[in-house]
């Protein structure tokens, strides 16, 4: 106490500037997300999955198309952690393979880019632009998502990009709608008027003021949409419309496995593992989305 009395306040402040702990917006979101064990678990699972996809060639001694007919329907063992399928292909290499998750991310990315452009234009300009674009969105939305995806993939043919596109078309109107309403809300805020009063152009206002303010709900939705897209792709491939074998995709692995599962006690692995991955990946994205929503909710902010 006496020491403090002797030193003038200004001097202490000079010597040791008060270090305020500062976090950016994303730092703050991360900080709150960290406190949610479920979300972190999901994030870890997805990170491992993504890591496996990227480094599949290095991590697995097998090629996902390499057949070994002497090794058909092996149950899980040290050599084949998830066993092998009807052609003796290593199931872990195939299930851990790249396509399901990549197509899901690609399709949601396409959906978000177009959805955001359309939504921002509609919300910002309103009137004619809004009516025309939103009616088109309504038409797309009125068709059940899975049916739309089936129709588009039939029309475009199978393949990685076409499957992604088929699913993306269904997500565009959902994102456009959401962005439209948040754009309208933000457009009425005074800081948009302020930006206009400083001579900013419409394009600049949309890009620097409106989009960043609408991003939080979109990020949450993205996580949920990716989960949905995984189901969609698996569904399409299961029906034989999405990605074609031998390209490994959870849906077509499952479909393929289904033909041999009449002997469940020895061949259970050919359907349990791909199904488990579909469920876990979808669950992880959904729970991560929930966690992100809680972390980004301004009402939760202290």
């Amino acid at each position, binding site marked *: 106490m006496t020491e403090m009395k002797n030193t003038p306040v200004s001097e202490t402040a000079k010597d040791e500037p008060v270090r305020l702990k*500062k976090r950016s*917006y994303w730092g703050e979101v991360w900080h709150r997300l960290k406190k949610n064990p479920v979300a972190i678990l999901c994030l870890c699972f997805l990170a491992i999955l993504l890591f496996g996809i990227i480094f599949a060639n290095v991590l697995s001694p097998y090629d996902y198309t390499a057949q070994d007919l002497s090794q058909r329907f092996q149950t899980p063992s040290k050599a084949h952690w998830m066993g092998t399928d009807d052609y003796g292909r290593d199931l872990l290499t195939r299930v851990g393979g790249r396509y399901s998750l990549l197509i899901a991310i690609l399709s949601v990315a396409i959906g978000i880019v177009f959805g955001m452009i359309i939504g921002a234009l509609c919300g910002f300009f309103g009137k004619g632009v809004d009516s025309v674009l939103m009616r088109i969105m309504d038409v797309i939305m009125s068709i059940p998502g899975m049916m739309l995806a089936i129709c588009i993939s039939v029309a475009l043919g199978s393949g990685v990009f076409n499957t992604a596109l088929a699913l993306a078309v269904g997500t565009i109107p959902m994102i456009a709608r959401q962005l439209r309403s948040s754009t309208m809300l933000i457009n009425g*805020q*005074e*800081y948009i*008027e*302020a*930006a*206009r*009063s*400083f*001579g*900013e*152009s419409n394009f*600049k206002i949309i890009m*620097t*003021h409106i989009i*960043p*303010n609408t*991003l939080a709900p979109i990020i949450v939705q993205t996580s949920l949409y990716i989960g949905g897209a995984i189901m969609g792709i698996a569904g399409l491939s299961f029906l034989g419309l999405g990605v074609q074998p031998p390209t490994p995709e959870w849906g077509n692995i499952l479909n393929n496995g289904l033909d041999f599962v009449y002997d469940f006690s020895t061949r259970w692995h050919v359907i349990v593992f791909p199904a488990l991955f579909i469920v876990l990946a979808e669950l992880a994205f959904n729970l991560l989305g929930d966690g992100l929503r809680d972390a980004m909710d301004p009402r939760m902010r202290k």
Partner: protein
Amino acid sequence: MPEPGKILSGSIVYKDKNILDMTEKEVQDLRGNEISMIFQDPMTALNPVMTVGDQIAEVILRHQECTKAEAQVRMLEMLDKVGISGDRAGDYPHQFSGGMKQRIIIAIALACNPKLLLADEPTTALDVTIQAQVMRMVNELKKEFGTSMVLITHDLGIVAESCDAVAIMYAGEIVEYGSLEDIFDRTAHPYTIGLFGSIPRLDLDTDRLQPIQGLMPDPINLPEGCPFHPRCPYAKEACRHEKPGHAEITPGHFVKCLRAKEQLEEVTGS
């Protein structure tokens, strides 16, 4: 003009040019650069997801041909001018108090050294102490930058402190216009008199304030004649029918009131 508002007639003349005749592009170049604005509510006039430094630099980059680094330097200069330390440039609006936010808005408004500053009730959202601080700062910066200011307010105390010429508005019209002294010492319009009458005074022991009688008329259904006549204590029969024009009662002091005009005529004997 936001929808459904429409400009039917009139002109906005700035430097001998009618702004209403300009293209959108020309107006955008004018905004923030030549004419800028301070908003009423500092809480909502800043973008919540952009750092304040970026928001100040944005205006500079928009209007001045300079690099990002130069804009950064100018931005720190502006923060310093409004009394906020430069190391807070990376903070977000929610980390500042109301008074500080208003100062940041002032920094944005003055960043390009505008000729004209429109201040729309800049201190209504602030408490009296902060209000005094902000107004003192605005007045100093106004002198320093050589900026003219149009101050819109209902606070006659602020008017007395920072204005040279005053226009009193009622129901969308200027009812009295003159120098600060004209309005405060030679008040002529009954509405202005009423305004001064409704200010609480420290030097008198009053129990009740003296409000102007009646209510504001509906702006889309204004009364015939003088719009103030239903509330005017001096209203005569003529006020009901005749819309008063501007009368110049002393040089530079205009009043829109029949009574003032009559008094003027009596004095000059015409």
